[in-house]
């Protein structure tokens, strides 16, 4: 089996068996139980909530991130093994949401770790969550969910941003350059 086929198989398998770890920083976690239980039942797609990042493939960051929690998020993200995907959950991860002017909240999660899918809403409904999963499957299938490759590629920039955030120089956080997107 050549490399191309192998990675294709890997993509198919990881699409059908996404193990998830969710990082419950805010109120968004409240919407997870309906997704897991009988109404929406994400196990239909082989998705499963996992206890540790070593076993997980997809990372749900549910809600706002203070600088302190960001450290944990980065730690967990780095402990996950490739290929790994991140879903930013709720408005807070996109632009700070209702904490847009807080001195202690990071505004854009994608400046610190690569986010594959965002779910808008404050909070997003379970339907939206399911939708985002389906979207992620689609992206994996097409080979578009390449956040983990980006993280390797722009590792220095991500690290720099994280360092700035940890030292509360949030205004010095820069966008990740996306000049040579494949």
């Amino acid at each position: 089996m050549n490399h191309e086929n192998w990675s294709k198989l890997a993509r198919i398998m990881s699409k059908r068996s996404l193990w998830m770890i969710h990082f419950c920083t805010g109120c968004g976690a409240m919407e997870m139980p309906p997704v897991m239980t009988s109404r929406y039942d994400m196990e239909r797609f082989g998705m499963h909530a996992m206890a540790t990042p070593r076993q997980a493939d997809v990372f749900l960051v549910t809600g706002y991130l203070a600088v302190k929690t960001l450290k944990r998020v980065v730690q967990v993200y780095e402990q996950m093994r490739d290929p790994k995907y991140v879903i930013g959950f709720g408005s807070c991860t996109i632009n700070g949401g209702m904490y847009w002017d807080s001195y202690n909240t990071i505004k854009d999660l994608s400046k610190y770790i690569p986010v594959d899918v965002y779910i808008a809403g404050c909070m997003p409904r379970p339907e939206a969550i399911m939708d985002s999963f389906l979207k992620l499957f689609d992206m994996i299938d097409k080979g578009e969910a390449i956040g983990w490759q980006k993280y390797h590629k722009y590792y220095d920039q991500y690290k720099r941003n994280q360092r700035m955030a940890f030292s509360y120089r949030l205004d010095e956080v820069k966008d990740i350059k996306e000049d040579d997107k494949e």
Partner: protein
Amino acid sequence: MVNYIDLTIQILVAIGVTALGFAIGMLFNGIARKITARIQNRVGPPIYQGYIDVLKLFTKKTNISHGWIFDLAALFSVAGIALAFLFLPVAGVSLLSGEGDLFLILYLLAIPALGFALGAGASGNPNAAVGIMRALMTMLAYELPLVMVIIAMMVYYDTTSLAVIVQKQANMHWAIFIPVFFIGALVADMALQGMLMEKPFDIPIAPHEIATGPMVEFGGKHLGALMLYKMMGIVVETTLFVDLFLGGGVILSVSQFGWLAYVVNFIVWFLLILFVFFIALLINAVFPRFRIEQALKFYWKYDALVGLLILIWIFVGVTP
């Protein structure tokens, strides 16, 4: 003089049976999840989900290791559980089970457990250490009633070889139809619940307490190996139960029916282990989790007491 053709055939059969065992194990994983989902009024994953999970884990891009002792876990657990399976009579077919006996099987089952424990310990994660502690204590807990029943059977059938026990059951009737071993089967089924680490005895892995315990640091191919071990473990343990109490699924004798007997026995065996596993799943689906000392007390107080009664029964009933 060794007959090389026979030997080659035996090795091929062994490889086939092992592969089959792993396949059934993975299938059981899917079935288990499906059944649990149905009990909880969900749709559940497809029945082949086990294969997908294992394949996914082996196709992970990067794998981490905490050193060579950590890797022993993956090696020993897969090798050990396959070894134990080879020494079990499956559907009346005894591959190597004539070369060892029940004691050997019980101790072979310890190889993957100890290897797994070695790797988990080597990761240095405190959760893993706690999980291993719980696993070993659960093992201590369920072994007492289990060995009580097993020894009662050994004395009753006057052999320690599992193959001979299966043979004798095929000649007479299944052990479960003897009143004392019907009770014995209940006791052993409780022990099986602990062996399979299903609720209420899933204390070692308790994902919400200690983050899946021993497996906390395993990911990628290491976790894949462990998944194989766990899934194969289901087959091995249920087969052990079926061999002991349900005649190993042997209903047709090979000498009379030829190859048909193999097929029928195999199907019966598969249905029986599925049935045994199904009971375990039913219990699993409705029970919460014990604390570890509660589990120990449960097994040693109630289960072992019944086991003791069986021993006394056999002690009085069997004349030397």
